[in-house]
């Protein structure tokens, strides 16, 4: 068993945030502090219980760790109340970097670079990078690039969104 995994990191982050909010609550009026401080205390205690569940006495351990659900036995997802649909023909591909990791990293890069130079210019690059990673056909890549760039353009032209300007290019184009 790993000593430290992503769930532990998540719980530690929750504890850290809750602790900050509990301590920070003393800077505010009582009416502004009571709710966040109460919730923070609850989160700290609950998170500690789960973090150290393997050391808890059995009855407490069961309460902390035992799943309970009225749902049919399916994996949780977001679509309509938390179940994922059975996927008939889909399969997971094997690769050194998971596809989800790549997509997550690509999203961050899209955000940061788009904020810096303008989303209109980065969006086609995002689409092409996505297509390259997943070995998509040229037609599909063109379709994705067109659709996504069109979204950015529509926002710029009809809703005056400043997606053609970034923090670094503001002085150049405007």
């Amino acid at each position, binding site marked *: 068993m790993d000593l430290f995994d*992503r*769930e532990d990191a*998540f719980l530690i982050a*929750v504890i850290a945030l809750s602790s*900050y*909010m509990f301590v*920070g609550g003393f800077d*505010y*009026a009582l*009416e*502004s502090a*009571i*709710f*966040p401080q109460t*919730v923070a205390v609850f*989160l700290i205690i*609950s998170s500690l219980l789960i973090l150290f569940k393997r050391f808890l006495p059995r009855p407490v351990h069961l*309460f*902390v760790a*035992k799943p*309970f*659900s009225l*749902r*049919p036995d*399916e994996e*949780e*997802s*977001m*679509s*309509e*109340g938390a*179940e*994922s*649909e*059975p*996927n*008939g*023909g*889909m*399969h997971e591909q094997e690769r050194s970097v998971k*596809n*989800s990791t790549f*997509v997550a990293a690509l*999203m961050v890069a*899209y*955000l940061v670079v788009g904020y810096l130079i303008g*989303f209109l210019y980065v*969006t086609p690059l*995002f*689409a092409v990078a*996505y297509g390259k990673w*997943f070995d*998509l056909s040229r037609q*599909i890549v063109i379709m994705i690039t067109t*659709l996504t760039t069109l*979204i*950015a353009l529509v*926002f710029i032209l009809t809703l005056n*969104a400043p*997606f053609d300007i970034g923090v670094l290019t503001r002085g150049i184009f405007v």
Partner: protein
Amino acid sequence: MSAIVDALLQAGEIIFKPDVFIWLVLGVLFGISVGCIPGVGPVIGMSAVLPLTFFLEPISAILFLINIYSGAMFGAAIAAILINTPGAPAAAATTFDGYPMAKQGKAMDALSIAASSSALAGFFSVVFLIAASPLLIEFVLLFGSPEYFLIAILGLSLITIIARGPILKGLIAGGLGLLLTTIGFAPIKPDVRYTFDILMLSDGVSFIAALIGVFAITEMIKLSNKQGGIANDAIEVSGTVAEGVKTVLSNKLLILKSALIGIGIGAIPGAGATISTFVSYSEAVRSNPDETFGDGNSRGIVSTEAANNATVGSSLIPTLSFGIPGGGAAAVLLAALIMHGIRPGPDMFDANLFITYSIFLSLLVGNIVIIVVGLTLVTKFSYITQVDTNIIIPVVIVLSILSMYLIRDNWFDMFTVVLFGFIGIVMLEHDYSVIAFVLGIILGGIAEENLIRSIQLSDGYVDAFYGTALSILLLIAIVLVLIGPIVAPWVQRKVGL
């Protein structure tokens, strides 16, 4: 009673205005389209377009979104029947008999059964809701600040036992959502809390960013791990519409029963259509012991499709009355209401009763559109089931990120939506309920405001929370919901069950 009739007439006038009606129909068509695509479904479809509805009139926006939900319930059945892959979890039970029926060369029969059952049950559900609304109004008016706080806690507690995973994890997810809502302006005193002196945080964390992050972004990240064709043994659409409709009309009692199951379960926060369809299917099997299910029995499709569309209307009851969503799609609708300045609660059954009835009547009209589409155009929609997710994923990601800027002209919201997408992935992986998290974010403001107001009204004492019979009942319900699942096995062992 005259107020109800006036509101109904006003609602009728509103939904048939051309600019409103067009969005109603577009909502159904868009909903059927997103429902057809496995991996997308109503919640993602609604989340992706939610920020864009900011620029519509509030009524048009709400009717557009609610009819996406309604249309998607039928769209999900199309995928379930034709490719044995439900477009949304609510249609999972439809695959049991729908796909086998399609393989027998009766795909059109199955699709017309699904369309007719959905429409009839949806129709019945809305009529039931309108008829029951006077009672509902009286019930909602009993709620004061303490009761509103308690029902918010009850709603969160119910989610944690309905969702998968340990109860404590569900409570942590909900609590985290509640905590994040305390960033920004406090509801009562003029304190600006936990902003790290970042101006953009003074308005708080955008609940729409959180919702789109955990519903759309998380789901797209998850979907990207699965590659290959979604379409599974695509079926040629053959058979007859008339036979399907005849079948439905000869099972009116089954439709009624399934609709009532859908209405009852849909009104429970967090339950959603999935549970109602499985319960309805199980009941159909139980009450027809001489029949075989699972190999193309039309009653199997009738029971599931009737239940899931009936759920759409009833999930609005806790949503509109108390601001507690009946499911993921209702959570998105609730976000839309708040975004457009419409506050759930007693006003939805008083000054804003015409909005509530507009929503109900639009579902009635939407069900007619479903029947028309289902019986005439469904073969066209069947092509949508073949759409490659590699097209959907980048489009939804770009749309979700870019549209977030439009709500508050705030670049920070774009980063927030991605951050919540990552939080959603971690929560999913480790059985923390994202529905509870979203509910916490949506209810946090309401819960805190009513908590503080209740304490102020009782001069600093907490007896406001057990001062009325209703508040005591709510307290008991919260305790039972949280303690019951832990104590139940022990009690069963003691009793010898």
